[in-house]
């Protein structure tokens, strides 16, 4: 199709909301190189370094002080996983008895062969044959949802998919956002009432997929349904994806309620229009309003 939208470049306007301004009062924001304190009585934590007796920040973020410990929590960072986090990752390597998974962290995470559910759901010792057929379960490029089992000493995460809700992901859309935007909740798997399902990975990777119909779970998450997805489902997922990008651009905390409100606010617009800057602003402002009403 040849029809195209064209726009002229403009100077960006600062969108400042009264709610965000009041929240900034108590925060101490620093940039790398800013001197936090000259008092030598403090212990230095993450994100700081000593520069000639002065405690200086090495990352851009807000200063946190716990008694005598000062650290700086960065605004934009790679995913620092903790035990119990739900992540969505992509297999990058198939090694002996384990897979390497890219989870937007500083190091690739590890998924051990012993941490996955074998097809059939049986509990047995992993044999040499299982090692050779690892590629049949997960290949390079596959997307999986998993949970963090433990953290190695160097910071790498060890993942497991020992539950039927985790496993290989089939048809859907992946949206990559910053990990700091995902709110920690009791559950990260939601079936949204608008007609799609979402997995909000703690590492910033969000997976949107059509709500699975009633099917008996075969191989603990390794059965990928290749049924064609209906147009209405695809439209819902496309709209959700654009809403997620809009929320991500305006740094709104993501959880099921905020995503849903954003979806509802975006209904008057066409799906492709949601990505326009002014439409994004309008939708996010309405979402923020609704969220404030919900709290108050």
């Amino acid at each position, binding site marked *: *199709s*040849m*029809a*195209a*939208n*064209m*726009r*002229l*470049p*403009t*100077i960006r*306007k600062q969108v400042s909301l009264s709610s965000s301004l009041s929240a900034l009062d108590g925060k101490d924001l620093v940039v790398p190189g800013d001197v936090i304190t000259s008092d030598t009585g403090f212990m230095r934590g993450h994100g700081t370094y000593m520069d000639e007796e002065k405690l200086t920040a090495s990352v851009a973020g807000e200063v946190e002080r716990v008694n005598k410990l000062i650290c700086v929590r960065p605004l934009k960072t790679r995913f620092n996983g903790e035990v119990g986090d739900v992540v969505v990752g*992509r297999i*990058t390597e198939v090694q002996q008895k384990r897979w390497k998974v*890219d989870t937007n962290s500083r190091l*690739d995470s590890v998924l051990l062969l012993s941490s996955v559910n074998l097809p059939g759901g049986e509990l047995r010792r992993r044999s040499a044959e299982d090692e050779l057929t690892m590629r049949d379960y997960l290949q*390079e*490029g*596959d*997307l999986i949802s998993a949970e963090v089992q433990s953290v190695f000493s160097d910071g790498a995460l060890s993942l497991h998919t020992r539950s039927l809700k985790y496993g290989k992901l089939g048809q859907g859309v*992946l949206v990559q956002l910053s990990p700091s935007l995902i709110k920690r909740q009791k559950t990260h798997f939601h079936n949204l009432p608008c007609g799609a399902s979402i997995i909000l990975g703690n590492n910033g990777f969000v997976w949107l997929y059509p709500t699975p119909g009633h099917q008996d779970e075969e191989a603990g998450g390794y059965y990928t349904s290749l049924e064609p997805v209906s147009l209405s489902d695809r439209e819902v997922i496309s709209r959700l994806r654009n809403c997620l990008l809009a929320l991500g651009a305006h740094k709104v905390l993501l959880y099921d309620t905020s995503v849903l409100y954003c979806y509802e606010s975006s209904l*008057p*617009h*066409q799906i492709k229009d949601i990505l*326009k*800057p*002014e*439409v994004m602003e*309008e939708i996010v402002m309405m979402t923020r309003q609704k969220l404030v009403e919900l709290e108050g």
Partner: protein
Amino acid sequence: MRDTPLSNCERDFLLKAIQEKKRLDGRQTYDYRSIKISFGTDYGCCFVDLGKTRIMAQVSCELITPKENRPNEGLIFFNIELSPMASPAFEMGRQSELLVKLNRQLERCLRNSKCIDTESLCVVSGEKVWQIRVDVHLLNHDGNLMDAASIAAIAALCHFRRPDVGIQGEEVTVYSTEERDPIPLSIYHMPICVSFSFFQQGTYLLVDPCEREERVMDGLLMIAMNKHREICSIQSSGGIMLLKDQVLRCSKIASVKVSEITELINKALENDKKARKTGGKFGFAESLPQERITALKTDVSHVEMSDVKEKANEIVQRAEVPPQTVPSPVLTAPGTGQVGEGLENSWGLKEEEEEEEEDETVELKMELEEGHEEKGRGNYLPKFCFPWVSETDSPGPRSVCAVFYGHSLQDSTE
């Protein structure tokens, strides 16, 4: 740092597009990206842009003692470096497989082909010879590093001038650039590398793969050739099985491409020579002001617009009814506006007709001015939008904006 892994859907998309003879940037199967060759202020400094791949080559020389078994020959040393600014996957000092492969191929292409007369580099047999050193730095990685590196290396060698040497009996004097003009190297021919990437076990072939295409390719065939149709080196990597006629076909394509590129290099050298003679600003000094990074700058992209009107009308006739939307879908924001027959001109700029109307009635003029002031978006609009505004014959319904804009673009690029 590791490169972000390529997702399955991207891979499938690229392969499917290649099967349908389509490339990401719209090129044909045998098309090269646009090559730009420029030289620096020093002799022997050359920048090559192959699309977005950017490489710099610098040639330098020094006097050393020759090898024992070859006392009459000078030495040439090649070194390619993958700078971390080229790609996040490259780390300084790390010997990667790619680096070794590129270095080996460049050596084979330039050293084994004997394109440079090494005997002319001899000063005193057995004691002093020139060692020519070619350093190639990769500045940006967007695929096909070998071709760009070979073009940069040979162009830099052709551009290089070594200091003149005078021998009087036992005394050897090396004259500086101020005392005597430096002399160029004696180069017999210019070997250029041409890369062919293969997909689906050799079924599909692409010339000059970009970075994405390289990630999904099965194998790579590199043919180094000169314009006299002499093959200097052939290398096939990736382990794909190639048929005899495939290799022959590739060599034919390579000879065409090599003659084009050789002409380009010669032209660039000529231009640089002319510029230096006239004493005007050339090379690095000239190019520096143009290397500004502007957020609003983009390269000229050619848009096919020969049959836009018919296609657009077809689409409009076939289009379904759009879904229900809010009654006033036009969001007025800075930098956007609407033009067209019967619609209110909201660009904020007065057209000739409107100005005439204003002259007639003063009252209307006041209203119009106020209206325009309210909208006042003209401040941000750059000059070039004027030709767009003057054309008010918008053909057909508003949804066919492409035709309107397309028409004006054609005019302004001519």
